[in-house]
């Protein structure tokens, strides 16, 4: 079954929802796909049937999204997209089976994912990221643990720590890789409301007796019976902290699966979260008909996302013959300043990668340690693809989404090149694992269009 649309939007987070609503307001036939059961993306993620899940901003987004004249395909996994004469073919899988659509324009608003940095013990049960901890706290209303070490860098650090304390849990320590003064940048003051919220969080943590260690990182996590023992280093000090859960994250990276698959040009910029799809001032990529909005084009935060989404939709509308002027760019750029300043805080030093012990598993899917990967690099593998062929790194179920960045940095370190020079892996389909039966659907053998048989 293939329905056709003017605009397809991938992602119903703040950028995608705004893009879809805007597109339909110009009379464009619009469809939105999102894997989750409700709109909101990751930043406003909510499980509507759990009391207290989500927040007011997310609820407002879901309300507007639900009322707009758009075709909503929530709980749909888009597994493939291809570009043809008629525009874009989107192949998705919903609860009822395959659902495919074609669209003249495609707006990619797939957001960002956590940046994973391996350390000794990162693969133990009870160790997770900061974005993951946020999902547990805000969307699923469950504590990551009863006694948690919260570590890493960036705004999620204090959001998670506060969320745990507010939810009735204990934070054994906050381990902030950045020194205190790193937070005080001019762009941070562009959002006094968020600054005040951050101060309120720190106040709550202080009241709860949570120690905050600055300029330090988690060196290792070990299992001790049912508990975890965390070794924290920095500023010439070493400290061990007992807990049952560790939430550790170093910011977000754009989720560029789709834009890579479609062959758009990407660029590397640490202050935007690393590799991101390149867009012009109208949110256009260099692939005709393909637009990108939100964190996928650079991690600049939720405030800028709706502006980007609306600009992308207006560009698409213009391209499809509607008379629409371009506006909102100044507001978009202003809104991005705070988010970009936050992203700057999450950059990972080479030291952190260099310090990963050789016995640590870096590619969890395939069980590959740093030592194994380094041996292959020493043996001549100097590119992501080459290392992949030689060791299977990145060929597991996660498709390299968890390990690619740190492995690329390892290659860079060992071959004296920059992260940028190492590049990204090629985009491949399916975009996420999908059950063969589910996408194949029913068919009649005799109706299978078989090409000519092989020559004898």
């Amino acid at each position, binding site marked *: 079954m293939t329905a056709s649309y003017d605009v397809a939007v991938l992602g119903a987070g703040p950028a995608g929802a705004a893009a879809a609503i805007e597109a339909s307001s110009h009379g464009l036939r619009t469809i939105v796909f999102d894997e989750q059961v409700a709109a909101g993306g990751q930043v406003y993620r909510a499980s509507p049937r759990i009391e207290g899940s989500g927040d007011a901003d997310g609820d407002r987004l879901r309300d507007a999204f639900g009322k707009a004249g758009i075709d909503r395909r929530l709980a749909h996994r888009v597994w493939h997209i291809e570009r043809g004469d008629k525009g874009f073919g989107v192949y998705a899988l919903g609860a009822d089976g395959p659902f*495919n659509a074609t669209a003249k324009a495609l707006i990619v608003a797939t957001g960002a994912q956590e940046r994973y940095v391996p350390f000794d013990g990162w693969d133990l049960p009870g160790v997770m990221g900061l974005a993951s901890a946020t999902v547990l706290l805000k969307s699923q209303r469950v504590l990551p643990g009863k006694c948690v070490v919260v570590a890493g860098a960036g705004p999620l650090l204090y959001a998670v720590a506060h969320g745990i304390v507010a939810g009735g849990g204990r934070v054994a320590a906050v381990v902030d890789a950045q020194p205190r003064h790193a937070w005080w940048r001019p762009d941070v003051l562009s959002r006094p409301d968020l600054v005040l919220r951050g101060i309120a969080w720190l106040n709550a943590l202080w009241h709860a007796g949570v120690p905050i260690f600055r300029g330090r990182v988690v060196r290792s996590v070990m299992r001790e019976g049912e508990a975890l023992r965390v070794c924290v280093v920095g500023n010439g000090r070493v400290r061990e902290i007992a807990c049952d859960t560790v939430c550790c994250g170093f910011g977000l990276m754009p989720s560029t699966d789709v834009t890579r698959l479609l062959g758009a040009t990407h660029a590397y910029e640490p202050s935007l979260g690393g590799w991101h799809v390149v867009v012009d001032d109208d949110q256009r990529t260099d692939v005709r008909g393909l637009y990108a909005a939100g964190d996928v084009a650079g991690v600049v935060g939720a405030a800028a996302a709706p502006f980007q989404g609306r600009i992308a939709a207006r560009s698409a509308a213009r391209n499809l013959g509607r008379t629409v002027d371009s506006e909102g760019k100044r507001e978009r750029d202003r809104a991005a300043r705070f988010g970009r300043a936050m992203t700057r805080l999450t950059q990972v030093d080479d030291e952190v990668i260099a310090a990963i012990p050789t016995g640590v598993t870096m590619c969890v899917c395939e069980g590959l340690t740093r030592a194994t990967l380094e041996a292959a690099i020493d043996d001549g593998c100097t590119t992501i693809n080459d290392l992949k*062929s030689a060791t299977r790194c990145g060929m597991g179920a996660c498709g390299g989404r968890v390990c690619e960045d740190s492995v690329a940095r390892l290659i860079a370190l060992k071959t004296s090149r920059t992260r940028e020079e190492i590049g990204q892996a090629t985009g491949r*389909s399916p975009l996420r694992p999908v059950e063969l039966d589910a*996408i194949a*659907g029913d068919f009649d053998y005799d109706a299978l*269009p078989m090409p000519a048989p092989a020559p004898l």
Partner: protein
Amino acid sequence: MSGYDLAVVGAGIMGATAALRAREGGMRVVVLERDVAGAGASGVNAGTLSLQIKRVGLMAYALIGHEWWRRAGDAIGFKQTGGYTLAFNQREQAMLEDRMRQKRAAGAPIEFLTPREVRAREPALSNRIVAASYCAEDGFADSTRTGTYLRRLLREADVELREHSPVSAIERGFRVTAGGETIEAKRLLIAGGAWTASLAAMLDVTLPIRVRTNTVTVTEPGPVHLHAGIGHATGLLTLKQKPNGSYLIGGGWQGVGSPATGRGRVLAETLLQNLRLARFAVPSVATARVLRSWTGYEAFVADYWPLAGALPGVPNAFVLTCVRGGYTIGPCIGPLVADLILGREPALPLFDPARVNAIASPALAAAGR
């Protein structure tokens, strides 16, 4: 700049095995590779090493090539699992019986089995099988390891390998510019797979090579249900399950792309047909999750026979490509072409490239375009 007896362009199974034989014969050899060893078809194919899918006229070559893979063994993940070819209706049965008889006559130890016999050995197979053949010699290798393996063989044989060195210019005599450096070699072998035509064009030779964009798919590891490799009477399905439970699904379903612009793209419609056929033949594949699909380029000429021999109109230049079933056959035909280059009589006939109306003069080439 230094003098080599032979410059080989392309470090896939063709170029590498030819280079190894030439080295054995005493030549000083350099292999120039645009990417890394085995980055082309040799490293991205489905890994099938099956005699049943070989052309009758190439069976003698396949038997020899197959032996080379068996000796490579664990280094390349070689598994001799046996293989079945299945037919699901009368038309396919007729095709199967006719073709397999001819292949057996050509030397492949193929037997016919009843559907009941097949399902007794492989319970995971479809209950709609109408006819089947079996070859105990069939198996598969882990094609992703080809590059690493070839790199090691070349290093151990003291063959110079220059990776990340795309050839940008070739002058007769020969002076070959690759990766910013120019080397001199008395002889040249172009074994560039899907890139061969553009390489030959540097010498004003037009080879009417076309390229297929074959789709391969891999599923998530899981419980093992299938032990042998599976093929289809029409050749349109190859299916095997690796020891960790991943299925590898191929059969030459076409994606889209061109070697000049990079890797090809998978097309959903052909991919889905490939997957449906796989599930029909082996129902247990249904619950496996598809992890990744990709394409690889396979060069061919209109008669589907190899180009293996002297490059028309250019003394001391040779070409080796367009070998259908090249993964199995490469280790046989590469050395045969090297024998030709060494001035020896190859033990099996080669396939004269001149037959495909190759043009060796710029004026004629211009007129032809």
